[in-house]
């Protein structure tokens, strides 16, 4: 009597007609709905795409940079190389750079670079350059771009003559990954502790709650500073990297644990969990089959929004020389050169790595925002 419209999905197994758009809405899985909604959040979606691109460049950075990030060039503290498309005669050319010469002012010792219109060096693609071992798998010496006869520094050079563009791109590897690894670590801690707290409730919950409140109420940066200062100087860059991630997550799991707990408490009261229990499902089964999927989307949102604070923390610690150590580079270590105003006033291009930090953080925030809207697909 009652059902005519949805009959075709079950019954004979033969679909009589296609679902209308509206019906598709009802039968779509949670993830499909989320994805559909997310696609419509233009800013969030674009940020996601840009971040994927960013990570791609960070992973394959060897190829995109013209020089190794430790190479020193003759041009010390050179401003970004100007790229020209019109030559001295006023005709259009493929992009090229002029050779430059450093001129030191005898009075101020200020160094300026003068272009020499006689030396024209076209920018080449897939040029041969310093050999590198791509992903440690095979040797290669091709770089995406480069010039012969002189050097090209898109973002200038630092006081040791190292190419800031190459360094910035190389640093993306650590700066972008540390947020991820750190968040995964905090996530594991958070989901275990928060899960226990929310699921069992009672005294356990009370104690863990108070502890979480305590952890949140401690000023993170001094604690981060103290903990990273304790990382032995003798450790290798890789060890330091992991030590710093551990330090970052030791302090920041608490926020996530609180979210997990709150969500579990909320879901625990839901009818479907009660139904599962009545049906005789055990604790673990209820937790993983019913509760975890219930807030997975929610957690992903929070994870995304937790990455930026990790990136900022790493940058800050490295800026204070308490984080990543040379020869490894992160955006924070690159900013060490820009410690005071006079440096920035004279060498403003040293701030460029910082711009990357800001962009990365904003992209993550936009992405998180888009995901948050999408995570509530029925709204």
């Amino acid at each position: 009597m009652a059902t005519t419209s949805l009959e075709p999905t079950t019954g004979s197994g033969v679909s009589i007609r296609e679902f209308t758009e509206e019906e598709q809405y009802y039968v779509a899985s949670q993830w499909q709905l989320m994805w559909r909604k997310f696609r419509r959040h233009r800013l969030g979606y674009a940020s996601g795409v840009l971040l994927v691109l960013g990570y791609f460049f960070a992973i394959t950075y060897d190829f995109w940079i013209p020089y190794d990030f430790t190479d020193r060039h003759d041009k010390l503290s050179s401003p970004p190389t100007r790229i020209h498309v019109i030559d001295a005669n006023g005709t259009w050319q493929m992009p090229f750079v002029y050779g430059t010469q450093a001129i030191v002012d005898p009075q101020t010792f200020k160094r300026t670079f003068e272009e020499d219109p006689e030396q024209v060096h076209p920018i080449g693609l897939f040029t041969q350059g310093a050999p590198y071992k791509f992903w440690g798998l095979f040797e290669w010496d091709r770089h995406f771009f480069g010039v012969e006869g002189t050097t090209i520094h898109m973002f200038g050079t630092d006081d040791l003559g190292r190419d800031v563009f190459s360094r910035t791109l190389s640093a993306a590897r650590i700066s972008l990954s540390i947020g991820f690894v750190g968040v995964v670590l905090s996530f594991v801690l958070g989901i275990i502790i928060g899960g226990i707290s929310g699921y069992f409730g009672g005294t356990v919950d009370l104690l863990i709650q108070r502890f979480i409140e305590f952890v949140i109420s401690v000023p993170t940066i001094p604690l981060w500073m103290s903990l990273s200062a304790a990382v032995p100087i003798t450790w290798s860059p890789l060890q330091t990297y992991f030590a710093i991630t551990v330090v970052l997550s030791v302090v920041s799991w608490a926020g996530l644990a609180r979210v997990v707990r709150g969500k579990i408490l909320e879901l625990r009261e839901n009818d479907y969990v009660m139904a599962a229990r009545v049906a005789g499902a055990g604790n673990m089964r209820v937790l993983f089959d019913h509760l975890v999927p219930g807030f997975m989307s929610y957690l992903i949102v929070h994870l995304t929004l937790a990455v930026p604070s990790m990136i900022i923390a790493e940058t800050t610690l490295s800026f204070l020389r308490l984080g990543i150590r040379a020869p490894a580079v992160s955006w924070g270590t690159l900013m060490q050169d820009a410690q005071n105003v006079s440096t920035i006033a004279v060498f403003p291009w040293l701030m460029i790595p910082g711009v990357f930090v800001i962009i990365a953080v904003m992209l993550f925030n936009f992405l998180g925002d888009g995901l948050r809207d999408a995570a509530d697909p029925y709204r």
Partner: protein
Amino acid sequence: MRAYLVRRFLFMVVGWWLLSVVVFIVIQLPPGDFLTNYIAGQEQAGTFLEREEIEALKLYYGLDRTPIEQYLFWAGRFVIGDLGRSFGSWRAAEQPVTKILAEVLPFTIILSTLALIFTYVVAIPIGIYSATHQYRPGDYFFTAVGFIGLAVPNFMLALLLMFMLFRYFGITAGGLFAPEYALAPWSVDKVLDMLKHLIVPVVVLGTAGTAGTMRVMRGVLLDELGKQYVITARARGVSERRLLFKYPVRLALNPIVSGTAYILPGIFGGNAIVAIVLSLPMTGPVLLTALRAQDMFLAGSIVMVEGALVIFGTFLSDILLALVDPRIRQERAVAA
């Protein structure tokens, strides 16, 4: 009300205790014991300690005892106000930690308080504006500013603001006093000079908290504005303005007040960074130099004192919350 306050007070005390454990662990973390480091540091500075002195120090720090006893020694002395001695990382002078703190802590507290006030004074009106003008240009503008404010690391914001002041106004914003006031006795002019120097740090410190608080205010307001009690009030003829300020704004203040517990650690933490970049005589630079020199008693004390202050601030915000929210005031009645 009383039961609530007693509970929050106990929580504060327990928090202090937990913090002291954490800090003690931090102090112990660097390899080697601090006495050896201290002796090495002194020798570097050209002072050689007598055997008796070393023995006295060993006894003082309880180095021949178990870690728990050492902790009790340290914590006990902390309670009576003896924070140990700095090994001379700050201003190259071996001196009691309390002396250094007396020098830098007041400024730190002044700056943090001002930054907190700045946060509220800026964030609350903007949050109200954004919520009442949702999806209008003003809302988008403040949302964008908020996103940028959240994304710029404190130290970069400090550098950028300093750079702009320097570039466009020729002002050097570093330090806390102009040279002519640095050593002068306190006067009205000196206070004004200090406030002038505090503008950049206050703005920098307040920005991150402002961006967050603004979003919270906007979100809670939008939530509350759609609630039944607002519609009920509208249905009995209450004006939109009164409707906004009597109910949702009032209720939105609760998460803002309890949010202080989250903003405060950020401000105190950010303080360290800003003070370092702007070279302000505050706890940040002291902490950094102490950590670099592994002058752990100084570093640990700073973390301990700042953490204790933040926990105390949280306690104050709990009291404030009770004053704002009658539900909490009457909690005892409800629980009984």
